[in-house]
């Protein structure tokens, strides 16, 4: 089963050929592949800016102290076009971040995988947004 999935992925990659799969800038230059980080925090604000959205969250660390993190996302233009707005991720929403820490040592990370605490993907599951289905959203199973 796992092998079949791998074959499908490779096949898709071959078919996609030279199709560009890159963000505006190199994430590997900004974030550290050797420093994965998982965070659970509440949304303080979202910087709805280009070229990349930044979600600010408050995370309670092991000592019970609140630490603010900035999470890098993609262009807001794509979300706008799908009918999402700056109010789509309200202050106080609890989210999970699975990403990589910034190389510069600040409390920044990329939002490689962003979910609500019930496992739903952020910005997905709001019907009619036209967001791509990627199989991870609970509503798609």
């Amino acid at each position, binding site marked *: 089963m796992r092998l079949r999935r791998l074959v499908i992925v490779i096949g898709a990659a071959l078919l996609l050929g030279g199709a560009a799969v890159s963000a505006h*800038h*190199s994430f590997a230059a900004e974030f550290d592949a050797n420093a994965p980080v998982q965070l659970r925090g509440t949304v303080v604000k979202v910087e709805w800016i280009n070229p990349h959205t930044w979600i600010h969250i408050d995370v309670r660390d092991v000592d019970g102290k609140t630490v603010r993190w900035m999470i890098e996302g993609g262009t807001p233009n*794509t979300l706008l076009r799908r009918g999402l707005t700056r109010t789509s991720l309200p202050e106080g929403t609890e989210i999970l971040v699975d990403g990589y820490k910034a190389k510069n040592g600040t409390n920044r990370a990329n939002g490689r995988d962003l979910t609500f605490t019930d496992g739903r993907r952020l910005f997905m599951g709001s019907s009619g947004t036209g967001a791509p289905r990627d199989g991870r959203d609970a509503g798609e199973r």
Partner: protein
Amino acid sequence: MRDRHIVLAIMMAATLAGAPPVAAQAARGASAGPPAKPYTTRTPWGEPDLQGTFSNRTITPFERPANVNGREYFTPEEVAAMEKRAQAQSGDEGRSKGTRGDVERAYNDFWWDRGTKVTTLRTSLVIDPPDGRVPPQTEATKLRAADEAKRPAFRGAGASGRGVDTWLDRSTFERCITRGMPGAMSPTAYNNNYRITQGPGFVAIQIEMLGGARVIPTDGRPHLRPSMRHWMGDSVGRWDGNTLVVETTNFTDKVLYRGAAENLHLVERFTRVGPDEIDYRVTITDPTTFTRPWTIAIPYVNTGEEMFEYACHEGNYGMEGILSGAREEERKAREQKR
């Protein structure tokens, strides 16, 4: 560094053939592909009307993949399978955590907009040469690339740039300047939107990715003098029947497109082929870089959607993160040495 060696090796392997003279290149490039069948509406002042908001996103590969055995067109079954796969494609299929590739994958699929449709049945966006592949680079390109490797950066429209000493080391894309030409007219992973507006004697193309607009005169004026060099080149248009033909020259040496820079010569053809589609083609000629001219054809499909601003500089925290990240790594390396 290692990447650069690989690129050089590929270039060396690909550049055994010499460059044909310019005249021969131009003649071959001009006949690339069957002509587009026009569907014409007209502006109030009588010119063909190309106006609208278009997207060029597509899942058709740029170059022809090996597994279609040289076929020029996909079968309907292949198209259905590709679209199904694009719909189902997950950022987490095959995800291997803790790898550079996973970091570069950046974020969940909802941020991306690569498209889920095959917008042309062709097996590649490259329609000429007939094998659907970008032609080999010339010997001169190889020498230039070797020379380039010794020089400070300042060039390259690729994603990664060259070094991390200064912002000048980073690509013009990362620096929010330009993806260059015809990069700016080619699909990428998101923001593949273009708004075309016309006035008598002018066609303007607003480009969402990185912002900016190309304002193309069609009033018969000549190109700028050769000493004037632009990031996006100097575009001059004319109407050939129902097709807008745009010739672009006068590029700077600061942006690279697949190894080509200041000697690039582009001829674009915009033909409305239906109420909601423009057939876009660009023939790329640079005898100092490519062994022959080559042509890409990309459908521009009317979306009827809004264009949004992409003010890039003011929010480019990524650049700061890349450079400060490099300084921090250097500091750690110094500490380790002690």
